[in-house]
């Protein structure tokens, strides 16, 4: 048996066709007579704005949903999948947008889950582990099979997902926004792995919002918009701008912010130290000032203390040392709620976990923090009419695709949940805004809108701290760029003062003076 290559017992998938697939959810037509096909050895990219129906289409191919109408043909034969078990059986694997891992189980257990063991009914985790080592080495670096999933970085978790599919002998693998949660370095690693897989005969379906990724890896591109098929093109015969137009239905402007005269210091961080989750020192003395009307971008490879810094500023992580001043008031010991009340807005990185309640409706999520504000209350009663008007405005302005304000947000597409939380935080008119990865997983149209809003807030005199792993985003938006490496700030440069390469060097731990000389 060749490692990682589809086994012979399973028939090799030569061609998959999805014909006239229609799928309805209450209030939404998620797929409207969509046709899609993929051939053996190909990478077929699927593009579309948030809520366009990409995940829904793929979930039907993986047996999680059943199409209302339409047909799925594999090697020319029609198939009906009642459950993922059926799809796995014919050799389809899927890496989901939100990982499908059990954090409290080990890597080996996650991989073995649901499979027959060689020692049925007993587990044979030793054998599974050996194979995981083999597979993970073949497609990148070894993953410790006995590690618990919660101990792994996001990139490692994704590799576990890929190994899960390969272990089951998948020949067609669907990757639903695999790069949305990865650092640039991790994306490079992933692409190496994917290319290796294609070489070994696998077929890939690749979903992403990032056009350069699509251009770099795919053979063909299919674009969906509002559940409808817009078209399928050979990647080599299409330009970036054409794809944008197909996705958004219009041209997207390039931003070019002009420097502003910055105001007084609004946020000041002095000698901040804090521990990370695993008890190691995550922040080793951070000093930073942010002025009103200024965006300071924090660049850095993830895991160098970005998350800890954001959490310390928001008041959800304990600091060991140092002070935080907002408008010269010491807020170091205030809890989150009090910081929010005194003018801090915080867009957490883990928005799904820290910023929203999945079972609550769109409107309830909009007023998660502000329901007690005098703006929306009459005495002890909530002013629902006013809340509704406000919520529907936000939904309209941010182009959040939802059947209604009362839909629980768990039914929204991933990107639309992001947009909703962004909308809420940006609408608060704070003094200081901390935005962690504000456009992660968000489509091009919405990214443009969020960027515009950030710049608009800046013009209003707000101090903005932008934490992002997307270097392009940082370089376009920031007035100054701070580079974080191993819990220290390596240096702060003005925009246009340093090249992307120079910033990259600093992110790798090269000192500022040295980096600027190269």
């Amino acid at each position, binding site marked *: 048996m060749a490692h990682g290559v589809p086994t012979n017992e399973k028939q090799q998938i030569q061609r998959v066709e999805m014909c006239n697939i229609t799928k309805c959810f209450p209030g939404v037509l998620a797929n409207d007579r969509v046709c899609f096909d993929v051939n053996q050895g190909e990478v077929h990219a699927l593009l579309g704005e948030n809520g366009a129906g990409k995940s829904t289409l793929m979930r039907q191919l993986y047996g999680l949903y059943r199409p209302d109408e339409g047909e799925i043909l594999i090697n020319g034969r029609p198939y009906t999948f009642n459950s993922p078990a059926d799809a796995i059986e014919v050799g389809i694997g899927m890496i989901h947008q939100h990982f499908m891992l059990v954090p409290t*189980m080990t890597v080996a257990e*996650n991989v073995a889950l649901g499979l027959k063991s060689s020692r049925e009914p007993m587990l044979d985790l030793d054998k599974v582990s050996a194979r995981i080592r083999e597979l993970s080495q073949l497609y990148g670096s070894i993953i410790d099979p006995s590690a618990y999933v919660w101990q792994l970085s996001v990139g490692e978790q994704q590799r576990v997902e890929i190994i*899960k599919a390969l272990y089951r002998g998948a020949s067609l693998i669907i990757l639903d926004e695999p790069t949305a949660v990865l650092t640039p370095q991790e994306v490079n690693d992933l692409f190496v792995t994917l290319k290796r897989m294609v070489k070994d005969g696998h077929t890939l379906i690749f979903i992403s919002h990032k056009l350069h990724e699509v251009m770099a890896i795919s053979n063909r591109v299919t674009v969906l918009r509002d559940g409808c098929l817009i078209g399928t093109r050979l990647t080599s015969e299409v330009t970036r701008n054409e794809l944008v137009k197909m996705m958004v239905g219009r041209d997207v402007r390039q931003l070019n912010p002009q420097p502003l005269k910055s105001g007084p210091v609004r946020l000041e961080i002095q000698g901040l130290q804090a521990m990370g989750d695993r008890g190691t020192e995550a922040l080793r003395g951070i000093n930073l000032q942010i002025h009103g009307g200024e965006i300071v971008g924090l660049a850095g490879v993830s895991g160098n203390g970005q998350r800890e810094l954001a959490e310390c500023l928001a008041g959800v992580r304990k600091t060991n040392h140092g002070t935080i001043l907002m408008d010269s008031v010491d807020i170091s010991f205030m809890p989150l709620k009090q910081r929010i009340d005194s003018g801090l807005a915080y867009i957490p990185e883990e928005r799904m976990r820290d910023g929203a309640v999945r079972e609550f409706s769109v409107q309830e999520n909009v007023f998660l923090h502000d329901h007690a504000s005098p703006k929306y209350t009459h005495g002890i009663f909530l002013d629902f009419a006013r809340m509704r008007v406000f919520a529907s405005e936000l939904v309209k302005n941010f182009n959040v695709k939802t059947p209604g304000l009362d839909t629980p947000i*768990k039914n929204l597409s991933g990107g639309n949940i992001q947009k909703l939380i962004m909308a809420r935080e940006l609408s608060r008119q704070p003094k200081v805004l901390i935005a962690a990865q504000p456009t992660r997983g968000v489509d091009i149209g919405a990214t443009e809108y969020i960027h515009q809003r950030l710049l608009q807030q800046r013009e209003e005199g707000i101090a903005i701290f932008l934490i992002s792993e997307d270097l392009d985003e940082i370089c376009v938006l920031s007035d100054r760029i701070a580079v974080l490496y191993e819990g220290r700030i390596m240096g702060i440069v003005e925009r246009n003062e340093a090249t992307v390469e120079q910033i990259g060097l600093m992110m790798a731990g090269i000192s500022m003076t040295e980096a600027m000389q190269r």
Partner: protein
Amino acid sequence: MNDVFQLSVVAGILTSAIRLATPYLYAAIGEAFSQRSGVVNLGVDGIMLISAYASFYIVLNTGSIWLGLLAAIVVGLLMGLLMAFISVTLKAEQGISGIGLYMFGLGLSSLLFKTTIGTVKTVTGFQPVKIPLLGDIPVVGEIFFQHSLLVYGAFLLVPLAWFVLEKTTWGLKNKSVGQNPAAADSLGVNVDRVRYVSVCIGAILAGIAGASLSISLLNLFQDNLTAGQGFIAVALVYFGGWKPVGILWGALLFSTVNAFQLWMQVLGVKIPSDVAIMLPYLLTIAALAITINRVRQPAALNKPFERGES
């Protein structure tokens, strides 16, 4: 006061504790199966009651303890199917369903008791069996090896349950549907079926717990015989951190302290009886307070699973 430290008293306390722990072990380990799969079954006490009645009735009328045990198992299974149908298939609120099941078991067992038996009677149930050789060891033999089969069964259940939950492919499925049912579903695990089986195993063990009272430890049946033991069993699952061994320690702690306070009363140690009675509860709560930080409950506990929620 010195009496308390006599060997015979210590032996007495331990013997009592082992007996007292028996129904808790069955019921709590059963509940652990259920809860690890994500279903809180608060109906344990009701299942214990109705199975206790069923096994007692059968033994009273046939004289066969094995038929009695079988009756407890069958009735437990039926109650489990009912609970699973309501909470897994119909996806009803688990807390309410469980309390409903409890009321049902309590009411039905007392109604049936009244109409078919009428008054308190006793039967000859499972008798103590002395294990050859081991049972003859002085003191130790008396404490550990002169109990009825259902008592041995309860303690053998601990390693058995551990093995099934931790070392088998089914155990992995059981855990995964309680932690992240969407993940299990995406690998083709039939979430509902695993939960059905888990709830039914739990209910069967609750049934045996009931039988261990009515045809082994007490050999009689009365209205509300369990007096809420099933609820303590549910608490023991939390105490034991959803692990059979943890549950074993919890059950032993609770019943040892209970046996200890009974002995203190018998020996006339001067403490108010109210304090003595509260002792096991106080100690268990204290132990729980100390351990609570380490306890990690199944992430999908109490959450019905519907595909497409992720």
